[in-house]
């Protein structure tokens, strides 16, 4: 207790003296970074759990790519259950006619009577009042999502065209009973009566329809139904209950949370560097005091108690403040999110807060404790001989404690030892690379300073003299800056260039759902518009049945490669329908990687498969693959594998059959055309002529990709601003460690006739140089990384962006100057006589 009192007193003194404020700030920052991310992801997960209850529109549902029949359909007839169904498809939605028509590709949902069985649509009707809908849309009428109506400029009472039929817009949907958290889907949604669906002409050969059978009732009946359904699920069918709704959203959220958590740990690593530097300075300042206490008979245990006690009190205070700040931050973020997504987000749990405390204390103990613990070894003789310190902690001990602590944190956050080690190695390598660039630049500064005079030379000399500290500052600031540059300038630049490169020769409209008898009229229509005559590819919906005579089952792919995501994808491909097509020859964006592609129609049907698709399903050249096409069987051997440039934005298929092989099977057609930018009426007129066609506007899709990238990177940017702040704290810790020297040297310069302005100039040159170096280091690293991404991912040439360098250096200089001049203001203000007297002894 007495020791704790002493520790408390010492903490108050140190805080008042400003000694450990940087240590405190670094800890607070680490806790804020980790905890705010933790709070936000925790709340998102809770929101998802809550949403899951409303997601289904019933108690259980079966999704299927064909109407549900057989035992599952019969099980739904259980008298204790109510049942209904919906059919979904993509379709053009048209408002108005002629030149003023507005067209959007949207989601169409045809609802059967009784839907939803749980929850209700919130709609706004003719009277403008928002209420729960009692029924589904009456025949001949339609509802539109409110955002969709806004996008199309539709008002209640307007005529809305779907396929070859027109409906009256009877209500706007504010909230769907089974709206999932689909953050980025902004396509308009139209709801109509299932009885009206056939009259739209949209249900044709090859149309891609999604069926849902929804049931609700007492728990036992639902249980019985799900048991039967699970046992009888066919190809392309999936059952969802409240417990397992939207696994893809759940896993996306999980991955997103994990990524943000790891990004936050970059700030923690940098804050840990600041903690280590500040703790070292703190321990140096206490050497004399510790020696005197030893002289007065204090035992090692007492010294340890006081200093570690002080650290723990400081840590608890910093963690509490950090958690409080994080709580306030996430409160506003969640408020904004709830408003933007129109969902209710439940409050956060206690776990993120506890984790914040955990991270804060681990950082403190791993990085702050070793130098402070070393104080116990101070020899009492130091009272007489100041050159004895004996407080230097073993470098190995510090490194081991620090790395051990970090590894533990990363393991915890990443949830996997491999990922943690990879992450730690990644951060260490990045920092090492940045440090190497910083060291080279500091060598340049050393040479440069000979050409400067007086205060400027002194400022630059400081950069190269404290080379170790300078490298730490430059690397830490550079890391934060690099991440921000990558997320802002490089990202937008790459997307711009990619879009520009695409725009030159890539198609900008995909036309799908073209029926066999429409192929020639559509081709003529397009040619008449002056657009290059398109190639229409048949699309035959097929389901995989056998490979080399062995039945193919989705569950065979569970755990096949160990990559959960890839296996899940292969499982889906094995279970669901996908499109086969035919081709005479390959375009430039397809390259044969194995086997031989046919030249002219072969004697018997052959298949050419995209290599990634084949690899996922374990297919090889020579394998005979059998498909089920609308009840008919089709079988052929694989004779070639292809690589495909998907980013060419041309219609491409995983599986191609040889010419004529699919003749006679039900097919729809697809084509892609490049419509001149000035032809705004193309889509409207095409759909007017062929109401069943759907037109996908690639420009709109790219705009959506962009908007999504913007939203995601905004969140990630916030996390990396923490990293830049942590870099600033490393700078402050380094300045603080050299504060005595700076004060003394400032005093000497004043004594030699240096003015305040000259001292200020020396500081400006030093911090501007460090900021400039950090900016350069960040720019070099960001340029290299963006070069790799540009050449490898986007297939664009590497290009040096001088604007990036200018912005990186400007931010680096501005941030460093502000922080450095703030930290060294005492050097200017301290009277030289007092400084010299105080420090030269």
């Amino acid at each position, binding site marked *: 207790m007495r020791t704790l009192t002493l520790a408390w007193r010492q903490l108050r003194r140190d805080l008042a003296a400003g000694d450990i404020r940087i240590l405190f700030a670094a800890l607070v920052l680490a806790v804020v970074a980790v905890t705010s991310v933790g709070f936000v992801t925790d709340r998102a997960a809770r929101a998802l759990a809550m949403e899951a209850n409303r997601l289904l529109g019933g108690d259980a549902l079966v999704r299927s790519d064909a109407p549900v029949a057989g035992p599952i359909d019969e099980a739904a007839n259980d008298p204790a259950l109510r049942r209904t169904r919906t059919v979904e498809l993509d379709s053009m939605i048209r408002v108005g006619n002629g030149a003023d028509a507005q067209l959007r590709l949207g989601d169409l949902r045809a609802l059967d009577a009784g839907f939803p069985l749980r929850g209700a649509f919130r709609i706004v009707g003719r009277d403008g009042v928002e209420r729960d809908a009692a029924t589904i849309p009456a025949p001949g009428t339609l509802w539109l999502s409110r955002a969709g109506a806004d996008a199309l400029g539709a008002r209640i009472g307007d005529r809305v065209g779907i396929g070859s039929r027109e409906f009256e817009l009877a209500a706007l949907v504010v909230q769907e009973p089974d709206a999932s958290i689909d953050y980025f889907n902004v396509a308009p949604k139209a709801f109509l009566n299932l009885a009206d669906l056939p009259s739209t002409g949209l249900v044709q050969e090859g149309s891609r329809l999604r069926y849902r059978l929804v049931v609700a009732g007492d728990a036992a009946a639902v249980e019985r139904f799900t048991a039967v359904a699970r046992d009888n699920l066919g190809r392309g069918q999936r059952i969802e209950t409240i417990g397992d709704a939207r696994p893809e959203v759940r896993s996306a959220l999980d991955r997103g949370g994990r990524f943000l958590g790891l990004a936050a740990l970059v700030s923690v690593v940098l804050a840990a560097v600041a903690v280590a530097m500040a703790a070292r300075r703190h321990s140096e300042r206490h050497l004399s005091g510790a020696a005197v206490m030893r002289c007065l008979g204090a035992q090692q245990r007492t010294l340890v108690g006081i200093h570690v006690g002080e650290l723990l009190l400081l840590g608890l205070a910093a963690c509490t403040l950090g958690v409080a700040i994080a709580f306030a931050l996430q409160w506003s973020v969640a408020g904004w999110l709830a408003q933007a997504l129109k969902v209710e987000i439940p409050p956060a749990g206690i776990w993120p807060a506890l984790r914040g405390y955990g991270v804060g204390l681990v950082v403190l103990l791993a990085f702050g404790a070793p130098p402070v613990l070393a104080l116990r070894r101070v020899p009492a003789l130091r009272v007489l001989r100041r050159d004895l310190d004996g407080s230097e902690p073993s470098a190995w001990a510090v490194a081991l404690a620090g790395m051990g602590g970090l590894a533990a944190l990363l393991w915890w956050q990443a949830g996997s030892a491999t990922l943690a080690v990879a992450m730690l190695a990644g951060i260490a390598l990045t920092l090492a690379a940045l440090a190497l660039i910083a060291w080279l630049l500091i060598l340049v500064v050393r040479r440069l300073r000979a050409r400067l005079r007086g205060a400027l030379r002194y400022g630059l*000399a400081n950069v190269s*003299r404290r080379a170790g500290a300078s490298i730490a500052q430059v690397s830490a600031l550079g890391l934060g800056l690099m991440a921000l540059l990558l997320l802002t300038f490089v990202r937008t630049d790459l997307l711009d260039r990619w879009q520009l490169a695409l725009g030159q020769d890539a198609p900008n409209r995909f036309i799908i759902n073209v029926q066999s008898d429409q192929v020639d009229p559509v081709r003529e229509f397009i040619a008449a518009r002056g657009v290059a005559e398109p190639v229409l590819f048949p699309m035959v919906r097929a389901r995989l049945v056998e490979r080399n005579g062995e039945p193919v089952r989705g569950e065979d792919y569970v755990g096949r490669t160990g990559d959960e995501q890839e296996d899940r994808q292969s499982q889906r491909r094995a279970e669901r329908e996908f499109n086969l097509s035919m081709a005479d020859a390959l375009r430039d964006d397809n390259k044969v990687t194995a086997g031989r592609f046919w030249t002219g129609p072969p004697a018997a049907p052959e298949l050419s498969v995209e290599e990634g698709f084949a690899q996922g399903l374990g297919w090889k050249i020579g394998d005979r693959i059998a498909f089920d096409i609308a009840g008919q069987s089709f079988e052929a051997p694989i004779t070639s594998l292809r690589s495909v440039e998907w980013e060419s934005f041309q219609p491409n298929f995983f599986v191609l059959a040889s010419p004529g092989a699919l003749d006679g099977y039900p097919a729809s057609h697809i084509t892609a055309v490049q419509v001149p930018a000035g032809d705004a009426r193309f889509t409207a007129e095409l759909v007017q002529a062929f109401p069943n066609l759907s037109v996908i506007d690639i420009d709109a899709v790219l705009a959506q990709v962009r908007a999504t990238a913007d939203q995601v990177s905004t969140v990630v940017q916030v996390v990396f601003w923490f990293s830049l702040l942590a870099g600033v704290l490393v700078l402050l810790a380094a300045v603080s460690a050299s504060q005595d020297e700076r004060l003394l040297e400032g005093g000497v310069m004043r004594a*030699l006739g240096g*003015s305040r302005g000259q001292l200020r100039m020396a500081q400006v040159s030093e911090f501007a140089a460090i900021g400039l170096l950090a900016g350069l280091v960040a720019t070099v690293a960001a340029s290299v990384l963006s070069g790799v991404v540009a050449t490898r991912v986007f297939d664009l040439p590497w290009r040096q962006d001088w604007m990036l360098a200018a912005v990186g250096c400007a931010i680096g200089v501005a941030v460093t100057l502000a922080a450095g001049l703030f930290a060294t203001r005492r050097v200017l203000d301290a009277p030289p*006589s007092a400084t*010299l007297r105080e420090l030269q002894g």
Partner: protein
Amino acid sequence: MADAQAFPAAADPAARAAVPALRVRGLGKRVDLPSGPLTILDGVGFDIARGEVVAVVGASGSGKSTLLSLLAGLDVPSSGSVELDGEPVSGLGEDGRARVRGAKVGFVFQNFQLLPSLTALENVMLPLELRGDADVEAPARAMLAKVGLGERLHHYPRQLSGGEQQRVALARAFVTGPSLLFADEPTGNLDTRTGQAIIELLFAMNADAGTTLVLVTHDHHLASRCHRTLRLDGGRLVADGRG
């Protein structure tokens, strides 16, 4: 950047000869402590003629270092005045006093106080650069040659011995051609032999340059070699004797 011409009193040689190098009147320094005001210096007054070599002696806490700070314009007095070469410095602001120091004053510190990031040559060039001189390297090289370090121009302070560091400090002090040189225990951190050599060099350079030297010391032997000794006790000037 100010230079000697900024101080008209020093421009006319005849007038200059009549003005003492230092004129101190009623100098006092008081600081306010939580326990009440503490008087460090009280009513100190004297003149020091040009070219005079003066030792300031006294026990620890007698106010020697405070007096030196006030004389050199490093600090401002609570009462009284200091004139350097006829120029009142007590009333000037910090930058004004810095200009006067740059133009007229040289320093030698007990701990040398070389800037560790600069080489020996750069350390000696620094006061000339701060003063705004155009030609800085040649005089600095010459001065280092004079103190016997012509071969160690590009060494950093950490690469030099204590004696060598103090030689650099002497070169730095004399390079601006100051009219007044303040030395605070210049041998305090050196062994006896090295200290002796430094004192010989200091006196020789001082005689050569005709500088007025004010030297704070505990060393009676050193004090006895000066023209005059000012003794402080409890913040008061208790003796002013010529040696």
